[in-house]
């Protein structure tokens, strides 16, 4: 029986405790494990909190948080393994991309222990199901391989951290640009894949830059973004005006203008926009603080966008204000930025890194005939490197623009762009290996062995459910399905545990009409739509049943519970048989915390109508202050002498 605490309260507490965890403090970690263990009924909420925390906490604090996860899954196990396992790939990989190499080694070690059974446990199964650890591992291996390949492909002498994705490969063959080079972010392998989604749409499509994009990209606040860029441009222009000969200023200004141009063409996908926005938000405060000049640029030659009011984006904390531009694009920051996209990626990123690097190299080595001889501005290069901007493999049109006008530098990257297309290594997600199926239905044909086709039954769906053996595609969709499928298992198991306490029956069979109308429930879809009967069930361990118009709960099987009267009116509950539910129920009953009240008594006392859904309690009167925590005030607020008279003392 639950403590009666609502999940979100537990989650909130847990979150606060997590935030106190700054170092690898064994005591704190074991403490957090114990809390998790005692609140397994809120495992889902706690798991979410953990995932969120790991995602948002600064890199330095990720390791301790992951150690909490490690401790929980090893000491508590299910259901946490189930909940945490579902997103473990993202959680782990996001953290991995952001931490330094020393921490990575520790993560590697931790991952290794996840593939083994819990030490000292009788259970021989690994901590996490192998498919989870395997997907992480293969991602890491691919990343490392990619790093190696890329370095070989370029014949680079520079020593990279072999086998370590973590070591950012250098920007080898670029003629050193004035401002230095954005380091190739270590997280590249993962990010590629994600932004690849954006590219596939326009893959191989030499679309002209002026093609208007459908407006669905506007969800990221374009106006605000544009405004921020304009602010930056303004200050950059101011800098340029004061110091026209400084190449770095020129470069920065051009980069910004380029970016603005790109934005205005709306070439970017939602994810990309998000990243750009985050980048800009990092730049904004810095520019505005460091360049207090009030120079007003000539905005007339910039397409004027309505500057809608938008909430100013808060710069990420801890970003030194005076950081040089390229440092803002450091791997950590970028990795942070890409994590949204990365999170939506396929489990196994194809190793396509080698492709982009040569392209970037090409870019950087082609001098742009604009005002400044800067080969490539770092911002664009960085964005491109991240796959944020379409990579311009050879920008001939741009090069042909002989303009010295700053504003005309806009189209620099855009024309003639050849978009980078990440090789699609994902297996065809649609039904089996379509198209090649040509098996004739005749006695001779079916005697021919076709081992190749068998893959449609096995290899094509490599993601196997450990509980029932059902297979899923190793795609994003397949992963989602599997997650829902695992949810289904989990909830079913929970419900079965609940159901074991009450009698169950075989249902009547449906009639023809219902059967024809029925559609098979699928266990990888949203549970809410399935088995409405069960959805309405408030199991013994669950809190208030919310179900207007009529409130009822299943009659408890436990004799003591059954004889416990309504704490408000002191009358016993009457069990009636419900045809709909096919079980004994208590009409007009509602469960609040651990107590069952008459719904009418309860609503009268709490004065808020039939909404026990708000986990309140007519507290204060129950005499057992520990029944339900929180939300007490609301109940006390309605306590009036008149009502008090009705309330008898809680007998327990």
């Amino acid at each position, binding site marked *: 029986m639950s403590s009666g605490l609502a999940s979100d309260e537990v989650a909130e507490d847990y979150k606060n405790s997590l935030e106190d965890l700054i170092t690898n403090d064994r005591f704190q970690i074991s403490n957090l494990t114990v809390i998790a263990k005692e609140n397994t009924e809120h495992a889902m909420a706690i798991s979410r909190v953990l995932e969120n925390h790991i995602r948002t906490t600064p890199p330095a604090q990720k390791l301790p948080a992951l150690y909490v996860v490690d401790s929980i899954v090893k000491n508590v196990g299910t259901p946490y393994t189930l909940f945490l396992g579902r997103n473990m790939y993202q959680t782990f990989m996001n953290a991995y991309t952001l931490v330094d190499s020393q921490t990575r080694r520790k993560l590697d070690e931790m991952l290794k222990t996840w593939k083994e059974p819990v030490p000292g446990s009788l259970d021989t199964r690994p901590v996490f199901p192998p498919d989870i650890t395997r997907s992480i591992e293969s991602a890491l291996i691919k990343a490392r391989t990619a790093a190696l390949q890329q370095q070989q492909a370029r014949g680079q002498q520079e020593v990279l951290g072999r086998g370590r994705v973590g070591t950012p490969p250098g920007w080898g063959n670029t003629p050193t640009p004035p401002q230095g080079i954005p380091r190739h972010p270590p997280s590249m392998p993962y990010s590629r894949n994600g932004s690849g989604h954006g590219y596939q749409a326009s893959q191989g499509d030499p679309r002209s830059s002026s093609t208007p994009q459908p407006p669905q990209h506007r969800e990221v606040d374009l106006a605000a973004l544009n405004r921020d860029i304009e602010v930056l441009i303004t200050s950059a222009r101011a800098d340029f005006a004061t110091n026209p000969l400084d190449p770095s200023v020129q470069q920065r200004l051009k980069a910004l203008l380029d970016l603005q141009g790109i934005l205005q063409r709306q070439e970017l996908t939602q994810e990309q926009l998000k990243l750009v926005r985050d980048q800009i938000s990092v730049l904004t405060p810095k520019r505005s603080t460091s360049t207090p000049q009030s120079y007003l640029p000539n905005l007339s030659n910039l397409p004027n966008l309505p500057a809608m009011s938008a909430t100013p984006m808060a710069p990420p904390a801890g970003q030194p204000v005076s950081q040089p531009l390229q440092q803002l694009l450091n791997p950590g920051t970028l990795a942070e930025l890409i994590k949204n996209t990365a999170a939506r990626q396929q489990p196994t990123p194809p190793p396509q890194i080698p492709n982009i690097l040569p392209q970037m190299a090409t870019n950087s080595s082609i001098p742009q005939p604009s005002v400044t001889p800067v080969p490539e501005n770092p911002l664009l290069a960085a964005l491109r490197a991240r796959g944020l901007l379409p990579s311009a493999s050879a920008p001939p049109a741009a090069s042909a623009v002989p303009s010295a006008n700053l504003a005309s530098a806009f189209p620099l990257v855009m024309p003639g762009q050849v978009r980078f297309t990440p090789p699609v290594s994902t297996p065809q997600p649609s039904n089996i290996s379509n198209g090649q199926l040509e098996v004739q239905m005749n006695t001779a044909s079916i005697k021919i062995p076709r081992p190749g086709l068998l893959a*449609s039954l096995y290899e094509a769906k490599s993601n196997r459910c450990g509980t029932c053996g059902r297979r899923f595609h190793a795609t994003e969709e397949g992963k989602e399905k599997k997650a829902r499928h695992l949810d289904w298992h989990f909830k079913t198991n929970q419900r079965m545990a609940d159901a074991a306490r009450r009698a169950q029956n075989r249902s009547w069979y449906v009639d023809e009409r219902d059967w024809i109308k029925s559609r098979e429930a*699928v266990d990888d879809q949203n549970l809410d739509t399935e088995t409405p*009967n069960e959805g309405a069930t408030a199991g013994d361990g669950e809190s208030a049943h919310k179900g207007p118009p009529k409130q009822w709960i299943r009659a408890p099987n436990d004799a003591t519970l059954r004889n416990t009267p309504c704490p408000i009116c002191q009358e016993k509950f009457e069990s009636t048989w419900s045809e709909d539910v096919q079980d004994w129920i208590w009409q007009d009953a509602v469960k609040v915390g651990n107590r069952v009240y008459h719904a009418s008594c309860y609503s009268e006392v709490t004065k808020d109508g039939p909404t026990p859904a708000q986990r309140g309690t007519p507290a204060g009167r129950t005499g057992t202050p520990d029944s339900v925590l929180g939300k007490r005030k609301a109940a006390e607020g309605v306590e009036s002498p008149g009502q008090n008279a009705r309330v008898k003392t809680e007998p327990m």
Partner: protein
Amino acid sequence: MSLPGLDLTQATEEREFVPAPPTQISLSKGSEWRFEVAFGTTVRVKLLAGNAELFGTELAPSQTYTFSGTKAAIYTWHGCTLEISAGDRVSAIEGFAPGGSTMTANGTPTTTTTTTTNTSTTGGRGFGAGGCQSEYVAEETPMVEYANVHFALETLRQEAKATGKDGPRVLIVGPDNAGKSSLGKILTAYATKVGRQPIVVNLDPNEGMLSVPGTLTATAFRTMMDVEEGWGSSPMSGPSAVPVKLPLVYFYPMQNPLEAEGSVFRPIVSRLALSVMGRMAEDEDSRETGIIVDTPGVLGQGKPGSLELINHIVTEFSITTILVLGSERLYSTMLKNYDNKPSSSASAAASDECISVVKLPKSGGCVDRDATFMNGLRESQIRTYFFGNPIPSTASAALSLSASSTTNVTLSPHAQQLDFNSLCLYNYTIPSLEEDEDEYDPAQLDAFLPGDAESTPVKEEGSAPPLPGVTGSPPEKSVTPAPSALANSLLAVTHVSPTSSVAQVRDSSIMGFLYVADVDSEKGKIRVLAPIGGRVPPRAVVWGKHWPGEVVGLVG
């Protein structure tokens, strides 16, 4: 006291359980492990490595599957290692365990490819690994052909999807014990595995699909089948570890579809086909995937009338593919009659949709299921309908007592007294089944059944003859004393009202079954077990007198 099923209690469950050392079996690519487990014993199987499937449904790694009262095979396409161990011995089902207490006589493996012989000989266990009655590894299987049938069907389904036609309608025919149902399971499992939703039709009254014997059912399969229980389970009030399947059930209370020259079977098949077509028309997934029809073996044995019945099925379901298992003679007949003939579907003429007839080899693993086994199967299916699978020996062909006990669902049927007069009871009086043949009139067999004095399609409305349907309906409210023969048999509750015509009662799908525990003829009361509490719905009720027949001791 070992009256069949009487002391069916958990208490004795572990009585004789002696854990035998687990045996490991390595299967090479493309081979299968065939095993037989008697009713009353259980065998646990765990997949340690590789991939393996039981009749097409894949086994999850490291999960323990428990089998009882089953004859099955675990096949591997890629090679695998299985761990076999003896499960708990389950009590007191000797009555219908094949061999029961004498099963050790049959316990030795029959084939030379056997890998292991377990020495554990506790209780009634066999000598095979984990106490199987028989178990061996076979390397020659027809799985390549079966899988190719699936791929060929997939080809047709893709075509159906592309062109908007209906998916393939498959008919599986063959003699008894040729592996028809197993093939049906394999094709269904593969189809669901690639995301299809076939409608599976069972026309074999000998063995229920998701129901008891004596039923003809149609079910859309979308979710995985239950490895342990064969097809799975029909809906219950509570959750189930393997998604439940929703069958549409018709009652055919005879063992042989040819009974009364098919005059009862045929209209029910037509009605069932109509519902299936209705579903196909509305359910896109089912339409694309098509139908898989399993037939009773007696139709494949060249009995007079069986070809007509096959033809009826082919026509009603607009069959496009006929799979003939294990009978050259039937194959040649089918080939002659149907191959390349247009199917009966409405659009066949336009789309020149033709029937293809394909011969498939019978698996060497097919074993005869003797009468004792079939009887055990029947009893366990009936028991499962009311009680779920509290212990492994009571469910269908293969049972669950998984280590996690998550697949064990215990159901609580409700016993209640009924006024016999309140029931509107119908009975089929099939001359060949009745001792008194005086009412047999072939001319009337089109209709429901004989038994009526007027010898017209017959409704047994409280009429005198062999058996009474004592109805609440006006005509003859003859208060016949409740026949004591009702005891221990099943009553099917139809979906139609008591006042319906005989034909309506015959063609109606059913809601479920009542089990008659006691009859008090004097007082006109009967005590019945209903799956669900509450009043028995006021519907016409059909008596399963001849089939599934008596099950003694379902209620202690």
